[in-house]
């Protein structure tokens, strides 16, 4: 108490010398009368004078905190630092005086003292928001999620429904019956006629552009050995033509000259081709801009030309025109973006015409690609697109389910709240209060 008295004295002295108006900032500072029994030491208080009156100030006032104060944000630490000298002086001296010692050497004593400086950070009293999941919040969150999710789910379901998709698996049907026992032999043989004609019926109007995809099943483009077997350096620039170290087993030809593009991925380039016609009128399939622009511009060099490609005894897939630079070989670029999953589609081209409902499309397929060796399937896919991508109901259904679940949870939580309410922060629920045996007086 004596302590405080001294502080008060000092503050009073200050006040006498201080003009009553300390400036706007100062006046705005919120002063709270601090409660007795607060767990802060008496010494923690900062004594200042305001408008010629002595004020006891909780140190936390400087920046909010455990004690909920409503100070304007401007008053917080950061800006307060920059307050001109006069005010600092007041604070310094008053703080100095309160810390210890007596009279004039107070501030010196303070400097030598090991007493930790007060700051909200070191005292772990940074202003913080303490969100608590109150029933209100919980119900709001559930309802909110439900309300957001159900429309999204519906929208994406509709979008997916609107997508028209024709899928045709042709791998088996395109093998003549006599080879049905030896499909691998059929596909590997260079003598057999691989041409195959398919007829597809358009179920609904397909607005242009209609995307043409080929879909491979059970083809592990994400197989570790496959994924690694490429040389991105070589693809980018002719200077790195010899950079084939990562490309085994398709790195070099037998005589050691590098294969461009090297690696298993390029080597196994898909080589079925499709020709479309409707009512004997050929449908133009645009093969331009099927690859990513970024790949064409930066990843595949315009000065890199195929070399020694598919020259070995083993032919993995398509051959490349060695006079066209890689950046123009869009099929290759598309293929080189290895698929994430063993069932994947790759863009083949675009049909820039609307396809009317019930139109019969004849597809002339050159069935070259060997999926038979590993039991893979090949499909031809014609599909329109929507904002959600291709035809896939999953997201829509999932969103609807989750949204519904959230609404259900909201309802059940409301019910629970009604049936068995628990006032928040009710101390009678504390474990040491719950047991009646705990009370004995």
């Amino acid at each position, binding site marked *: 108490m004596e302590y405080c008295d001294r502080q008060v004295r000092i503050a009073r002295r200050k006040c006498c010398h201080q003009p009553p108006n300390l400036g706007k900032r100062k006046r705005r500072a919120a002063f709270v009368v601090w409660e007795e029994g607060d*767990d802060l030491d008496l010494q923690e208080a900062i004594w200042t004078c305001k408008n010629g009156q002595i004020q006891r100030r909780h140190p936390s006032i400087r920046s909010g905190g*455990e004690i909920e104060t409503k100070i304007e944000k401007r008053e917080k630490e950061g800006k307060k630092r920059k307050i001109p000298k006069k005010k600092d002086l007041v604070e310094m001296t008053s703080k100095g005086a309160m810390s210890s010692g007596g009279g004039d050497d107070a501030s010196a004593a303070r400097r030598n003292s*090991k*007493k*930790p400086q*007060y700051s909200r950070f070191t005292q*772990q009293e*940074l202003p913080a*928001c*303490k969100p608590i*999941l109150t029933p209100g919040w919980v119900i709001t969150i559930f309802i909110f*999620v439900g309300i957001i999710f159900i429309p*999204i789910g519906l929208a994406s379901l509709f979008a997916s429904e609107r997508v028209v998709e024709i899928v045709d698996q042709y791998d088996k049907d395109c093998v003549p019956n006599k080879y049905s026992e030896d499909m*691998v032999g059929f596909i590997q043989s260079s003598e057999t006629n691989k041409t195959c004609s398919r007829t597809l019926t358009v179920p609904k109007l397909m607005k242009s552009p209609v995307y043409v*995809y080929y879909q491979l099943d059970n083809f*592990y483009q*994400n*197989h*570790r*050995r*496959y*994924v690694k077997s*490429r040389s*991105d350096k070589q693809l980018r620039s002719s200077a790195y033509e010899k950079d084939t170290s990562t490309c085994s*087993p398709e790195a070099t030809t037998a005589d050691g000259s590098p294969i461009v593009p090297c690696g298993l991925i390029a*080597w196994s380039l898909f080589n079925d081709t499709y020709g479309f016609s409707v009512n004997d009128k050929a449908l133009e399939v645009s093969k331009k801009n099927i690859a990513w622009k*970024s790949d064409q511009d930066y990843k595949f060099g315009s000065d890199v030309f195929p070399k020694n490609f598919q020259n070995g*005894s*083993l032919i993995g897939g398509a051959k490349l025109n060695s006079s066209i630079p890689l950046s123009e070989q869009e099929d290759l670029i598309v293929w080189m973006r*290895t*698929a*994430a*999953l*063993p*069932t*994947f*589609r790759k863009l083949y081209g675009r049909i820039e015409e609307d396809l009317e409902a019930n139109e019969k499309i004849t597809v002339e397929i050159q069935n070259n690609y*060997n999926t038979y*060796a*590993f*039991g893979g399937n090949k499909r031809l896919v014609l599909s329109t697109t929507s904002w*959600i991508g291709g035809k896939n109901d*999953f997201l829509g259904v999932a969103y609807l389910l*989750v949204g519904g*679940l*959230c609404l259900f*949870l909201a309802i059940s*939580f409301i019910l*629970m*709240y009604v049936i068995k309410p628990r006032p928040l*922060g009710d*101390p009678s629920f*504390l*474990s*040491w*209060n719950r047991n009646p*045996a*705990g*009370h*004995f007086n």
Partner: protein
Amino acid sequence: MTSERSLLIPSPPITTTLDRILWIPSFADLSKPARYSPITVSAMDQPNPAEPVTVTKSSSFRSLSIQSKNSSKHSVGEGNSTSIDGYGRSGSKSVRYGSRGGAESDGFSSSQKEINDEEARFIYINDPQKTNDKFKFAGNSVRTSKYTVLTFLPRNLFEQFHRVAYIYFLVIAILNQLPQLAVFGRGASIMPLAFVLLVTAVKDAYEDWRRHRSDKIENNRLASVLVNGQFQQKRWKDIQVGEILKVSLNETLPCDMVLLSTSDPTGVAYVQTLNLDGESNLKTRYAKQETLSKMPENEDIHGLIKCERPNRNIYGFQANMEIDGKRVSLGPSNIVLRGCEIKNTTWMIGVAVYTGSESKVMLNSSGAPSKRSRLEIHMNREILFLSAFLVSMCTIVSICAGVWLHRHRDELDYIPYFRKLKFYANGTEKSHNWSGLGWQIFFTFLMSVIVFQIMIPISLYISMELVRLGQAYFMIRDRRMYDETSDSRFQCRALNINEDLGQIKYVFSDKTGTLTENKMEFQCASIGGIDYSGGRAAFPEEKGYEVQVDGQVLRPKMTVKADPELQQLLKSGRTTEEGKYAYDFFLALAACNTIVPLLVETSDPSVKLVDYQGESPDEQALVYAAATYGFMLIERTSGHIIIDIQGEKQRFNVLGMHEFDSDRKRMSVIVGCPDKTMKVFVKGADSSMFNVIDKSLNLDVIGATEKHLRAYSSLGLRTLVVAMRELSSPEFDRWQSAYEKANTALIHRAKLLRTVACDVEKNLHVVGSSGIEDKLQEGVPEAIESLRQAGIKVWVLTGDKQETAISIGYSCKLLTSDMNQIIINSKSMQSCRKSIEDGKALSKKLMATPADTHTGGGVEPVGVPLALIIDGTSLVYVLDTELEQELFELATECTVVLCCRVAPMQKAGIVALIKKRTEDMTLAIGDGANDVSMIQKADVGIGISGQEGRQAVMSSDFAMGQFRFLVPLLLVHGHWNYQRMGYMILYNFYRNAIFVLVLFWYVLYTAFTLTTAINEWSSVLYSIIYSSLPTIVVGILDKDLSRKTLMRYPQLYGPGQREECYNQRLFWLTMADTLWQSAAIFYVPFLAYRHSTVDGSAIGDLWTISVVIIVNLHLALDIIRWSWITHAVMWGTIVATCICVIIIDAIPSLPGYWAIFHIAGTGKFWFCLLGIVVVALLPRFVLKVFSQFLSPSDTQIAREAEKFGNTTEFIRSEVEMNPPL
């Protein structure tokens, strides 16, 4: 009578006429253990195991001694006190904690043995060349730093790889370098480990650099050294053994040196050993008579000092000096140690004997003790589970891969990945890296270990260290744990057990200096059978007593409240019987001590303050009391004392002094009074004094004194009995010859001296007894009350006697009046057993009466509380016998356990009693050297940096100024630390496991070939950038409850004791949640992008970002307090992740170039992300919400109350919930 501690001090030699080799028991402060355990005593003669005693080659000597300093791990015990040494060695059954060895131990005398030439070091005074000729002694430069520029890398790496986890990661990184197994790029695989090593190395390097800097400053300080007959300034590091140094007032000693002469004609020097053991009062050191008059500037001093090898015992030194053909023994009082400061002595001259790393202070600087926290031990168990997960995941993958390869064995011949022979028509080319099914499976296994390696969270270790560092920072900076009086902050000496503070169930506390201030205040006296307690009520005079001496006013620095009646009586002189008694009493108080009066200047030049410096607070109190009553001790030299008696200066010759020892429990002084009589004054503990009192005289005085003694100790006062007798001249002669003989004896001196003392201390008549109040420290009762409410059992272990202990127990609210006391005070095994059984029966009966005594979750068992009071004698029969279990059962039933009269070893024994039988965490708190064993034994040891030196602090894990800080330390910081750390560990397990699981799911769709969709750089950065910072910041800053709430409701400490924040259930729940979340993260995009054109890198980016977002939102969901730092880190991390992903995808040479821009440009990506967040976190959120609502934890309720603060209700219920105990 409780003053044994206070009297245990090395006292100055009194008789300068005798060539008295002063031998002080090497650990004056520790003579209590010495008394009980023979092993302890002998330990001090045995070479310290950590010290290179047997090495003779000087070169290796040096290196080894440095090693011994650095190998802090096993030198912890020895470094602090030799009693621990004995304790540690005795680990097995061979030593009983309570065992009382043969009363007469030869340990004391054996230290008197001649120093063996081979084990000695020879120092030629003032001849450093010759001294260092044969053996090169270490120079005086010190190196506390661990590394040099050259050794830093190998040594630091070596030290870091002591961690098994690091070796695991190293092995994996090496595996990854094999071409067969190269899953990651070579650089990427080493990154995480390199990062962790780098961070630690930088931290170590910084610390070491600071040490280097301080070493440099230290080594370049100047000291004046005798060179060619003149004192010259020389750098500390150039000082050599054998050189003569001169140290002036207030200077710090550069090395350990033997005193040759001082400015004081009697050869006394006062040193302050603050830096050494923290004791601020002055100690006296003596130059030998033979060297006293030598002035090294004028004459050559030559001599040979033969002393023992450098050792770490700062209280022991033995050597002898040959000078001028005479052989003189040197003891601990003749050596001054490096780091001490000279006070009250203008100069002193000495010869350097131990320098640099061999000086005692350097040998004693051992690192903090290393303990492992309970949480970490549990964590290691869970890490084993995680390893099992890891192995099973790898097994699944490799088995599946095997099955896949087997089922596709025909196709393998065709598909391009392996190119088995059949692929080729001509069969000429070799297969591509196909090494047979078995090998493929094996390789797959190893590769999967590499891919899934971070299942074992490497980052956890470093996060934990950082978090603990942060927590320690906050604990140190806590203003509520700053002690104003001693100007000391909280200290964290051990950095790895912060979270143990939140789980304490037992607190073992020392009493003196811990619960009490160890500031003694003279309160009352019983003199000649009359009780003078009036002073307790009277107000102290404003000015206090003062005397005029030589025109100067002398005033004692402190005054005590004086009894006016007694003052009056003393003024009236020795006319009455009572007057005589009072005169003798206060004369005894003023004379029979080892206090050194110092005159301190004040602002008023004519007034001087008398400051009594001594090592025992009891004695100080008594001397101040005597001064107040007009018996002012003014001067003490080795041969006489001057006492101002009622304004009249009188000189008393001190003819002999028998120091305190723990067997006699008393000290005596033989003085020659001005009236030519010779008197023996004895003061000591009542138990020992009444044995030597002549019972035939003054029976009523004895009886009255005994009665008063009981009354005083029931008031909680420490009592001393003062007795005296006159010596007749033949008696004196007899004593003197015996004394001289004993003093000069070469062997068994201590024993002989004791015999002499016992001979003279007999047939005494009682003068009176004093009552000294040992003041309770501030806030102790409240602190104990809080701890009790928190469900912590407080046991007090004290050396005091039973009555004192009980009364202190009452005053600090440890004991309350409604408690049933079970007092065990037995002298034999049988009676001990019986008392314990009786106690158990009683407790059963009491426990049975209230039918529904249900312990309300870690809170005190209600019913009639029991208090167990047991004394050290009984403990001898209990500890390490079959009764131990019985005692344990009884003690755990009791609310309070009070052990009095316990020896230090027994303190450790009691801690062990609990530790051996329960899993509960124990904490020991104490301030003295006698608490060291207990502090080291307990799970958490806390030292009070108070008055009793630094022994306790040195061996503690945490040190603080006051007992009451235990409350904020445990209830606030302990609670926070535990909650934070527990959560952080679980979260780190989760964080790594979820990532691994996402990888794992993908592997199932890649023909089990361990392709990762998440690119390798993201994998590496995951633990470093993507998710590390938030958990660290949350681990340091998050608070589940405010300090105020925690302090107000100590019961909230319970969750830590019940291990609610980290346990197996939570672990498995977390793991289940991890499984779900990882599945959600993987399968939402998987299903959404099924049968689409998406490429691996793009979907990989989606997975990366969603893992990071989920992991951080998961944390965000559990954060309780959002300060700006939390916000910044949390959202900053997510932003940083996105930036990193973008940067990685902007590198054209990586396969995933630009993928993120393509995929993020579609709506599907964002809907996937949103869906993942909700789906993944929904179960956790629902579970959390429902459990919080239906069965809220105490913490939860308190948090709600804190926020919605319906304070009135809170306060009302508070009354209910804290029933007065």
